[in-house]
């Protein structure tokens, strides 16, 4: 073969694979409102930054006539590229090729790029769009899934792992996203479940649509499996790009600093919090009033909204924000919000992102459903993850910090490096009404006018205990600060703890209350 014909032969081979499942399948994909695997990769990565590998990988299955079938790239596209200049490894399942079904060669392309990402210390992005196991390959297909899950686990805490669900992701396949750090879903396109509507109908007689069982909204609002929700694939890709700018490449690095910016004008911090401790406000306004450019990138915005988590920057440095949200359920901790906080805290700790906690909570949510759902175990996750975290931990008590909730929200006692409190802080075992009713029970009951006595005792308790000064007198907090001083104190705390190195007793690993 001449040089020229070798080149021509190569180009023909490459074009064949790149055309995926062919025009018909691609048209079908488009009709479902979906981009193709390569279009998605191109849209996420910087222009012309994608380099594809393993284009010519072929499956070895010979059963059920598979030996006569060649599947382009075995149904998955893998490679590396950059997002806003940050290096990433990426794979995208190609639904146009045999429904993106996962066979061993397909899986091995994924595990290869995962190994690559781990060795190179770069984030991994996985785009899931697959009908599931390639049944013809039998147990080899299962082996493929298992090898992926194993690497998801090894990579956890080593490199950031991002899963993008852009099609079906059902059965065992959902466990790969579940093991990763952030799951992105898109309205009308993402479908995630362990057992589908048909099985549920057959076995349990319950009828439900795919969308209602495991669509984007359900996974974002109800189950909490997904972290980011978008109306379109393009909006989803913008969210991914934004996330990548906040996090480091791997666990040995810190997130890249950005040019510092002051908060946007119009966020009057001292006007956000109502004077009465039982009135609501949006704690995100406090975050926006202190962070750079008032840019708060919320994670799991639509789930367990009584607690807020997300990324922001202080003087150019990434921080992880955890905040009780008095606007929703008075900001209580419960099963879901505890889960949400704990997971986020552990991500930040694993990836050297300082934690800033804003506290305003009345305690834990009472209820039979909460107790039966294991709020003890879930609530303990918050204590565990804060105590375990060795990144700089800065706490600002805005208003209520009552009882167990006070301890849980990164108190000094769980190893906070800095605890600041606003003058509006109430650091106490419980709110004045509850405390007065218990402490002065007999006086109230025995009084000629119990209600007047109750009011008097509540006022007495409020005066004495509903403030930050007893905690300050005991050294449990470091400083009472003006709301307007918050940003300065936070930036200083960040700068002063930049070299923080806290060591812990050596062990294989802890046993958190999963």
């Amino acid at each position, binding site marked *: 073969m001449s040089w020229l014909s070798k080149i021509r032969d190569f180009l023909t081979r490459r074009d064949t694979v790149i055309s995926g499942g062919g025009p018909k399948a691609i048209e079908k994909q488009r009709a479902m409102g979906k981009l193709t695997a390569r279009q998605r990769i191109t849209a996420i990565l910087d222009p012309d930054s994608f380099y594809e590998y393993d284009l010519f990988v072929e499956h070895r299955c010979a059963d059920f006539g598979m030996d006569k079938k060649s599947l382009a790239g075995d149904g998955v596209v893998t490679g590396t590229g950059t997002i806003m200049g940050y290096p990433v490894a990426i794979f995208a399942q190609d639904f146009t090729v045999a429904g993106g079904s996962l066979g061993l060669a397909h899986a091995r392309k994924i595990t290869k790029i995962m190994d690559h990402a781990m060795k190179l210390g770069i984030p991994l992005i996985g785009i899931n769009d697959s009908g599931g196991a390639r049944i013809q390959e039998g147990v080899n297909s299962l082996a493929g899934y298992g090898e992926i899950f194993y690497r998801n686990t090894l990579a956890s805490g080593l490199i950031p792992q991002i899963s993008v669900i852009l099609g079906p992701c059902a059965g065992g396949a959902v466990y790969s996203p579940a093991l990763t750090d952030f799951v992105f879903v898109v309205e009308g396109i993402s479908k995630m479940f362990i057992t589908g509507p048909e099985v549920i109908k057959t*076995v*349990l*007689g*319950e009828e439900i649509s795919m969308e209602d069982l495991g669509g984007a*909204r359900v996974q*974002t*609002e*109800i189950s909490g499996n997904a972290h980011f*929700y978008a109306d379109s694939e393009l909006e989803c890709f913008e969210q991914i790009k934004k996330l990548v700018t906040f996090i480091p490449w791997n666990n040995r690095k810190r997130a890249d600093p950005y040019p510092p910016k002051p908060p946007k004008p119009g966020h009057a911090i001292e006007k956000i919090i109502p004077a009465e*401790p*039982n*009135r*609501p406000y949006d704690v995100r306004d406090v975050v926006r009033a202190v962070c750079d450019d008032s840019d708060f990138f919320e994670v799991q915005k*639509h789930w*367990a*909204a*009584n607690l807020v988590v997300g990324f922001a920057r202080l003087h150019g440095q990434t921080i992880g924000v955890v905040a009780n949200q*008095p*606007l*929703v*359920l*008075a*900001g*209580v901790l419960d099963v*879901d919000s505890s889960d949400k906080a704990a997971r986020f805290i552990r991500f930040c700790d694993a990836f050297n992102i300082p934690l800033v906690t804003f506290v305003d909570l*009345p*305690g834990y*949510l*009472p*209820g*039979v*459903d909460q107790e039966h759902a294991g709020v003890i175990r879930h609530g303990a996750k918050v204590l565990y993850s804060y105590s375990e975290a060795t990144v700089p931990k800065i706490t600002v008590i805005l208003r209520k910090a*009552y009882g167990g909730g006070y301890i849980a929200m990164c108190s000094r006692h769980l190893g906070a490096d800095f605890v600041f409190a606003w003058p509006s802080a109430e650091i106490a075992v*419980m*709110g*004045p*009404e*509850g*405390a007065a*009713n218990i402490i002065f029970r007999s006086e109230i009951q025995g009084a000629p006018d119990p209600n007047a006595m109750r009011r008097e005792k509540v006022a007495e308790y409020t005066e004495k205990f509903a403030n930050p000064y007893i905690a300050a007198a005991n050294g449990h907090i470091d400083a009472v600060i003006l709301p307007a001083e918050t940003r300065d104190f936070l930036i200083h705390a960040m700068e002063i703890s930049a070299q923080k190195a806290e060591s812990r007793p050596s062990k294989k690993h802890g046993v958190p209350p999963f």
Partner: protein
Amino acid sequence: MSDEREIRQLELDDTVYSTLYTRKFAERKPYVPVDPRQVRARIPAMVVSVSVQPGRRIRRGEALLVVEAMKMRNEITAHHDGVVARVLVTPGQMVAKDELLLELE
């Protein structure tokens, strides 16, 4: 997205807070105490056989009926001694989750 947008009341430790509810909280079901006299279906199933009749004295652990669900036959046994008051199902019948199967006196 569809979290409740209406400010409501939530009482904790004798303090009433004004706040939004999450959808989950707004839709939570009040707890219903378990009545030990009632035998209910844990999951949707088909009744295969019933081995007791009303008036029959039974002992704890005794088989009451067999139901089939998820391709498995499950024997439902008595949780305590008692007398069968009512049997509400017959073999071949499909029952829903939580449906009352049998009542003890």
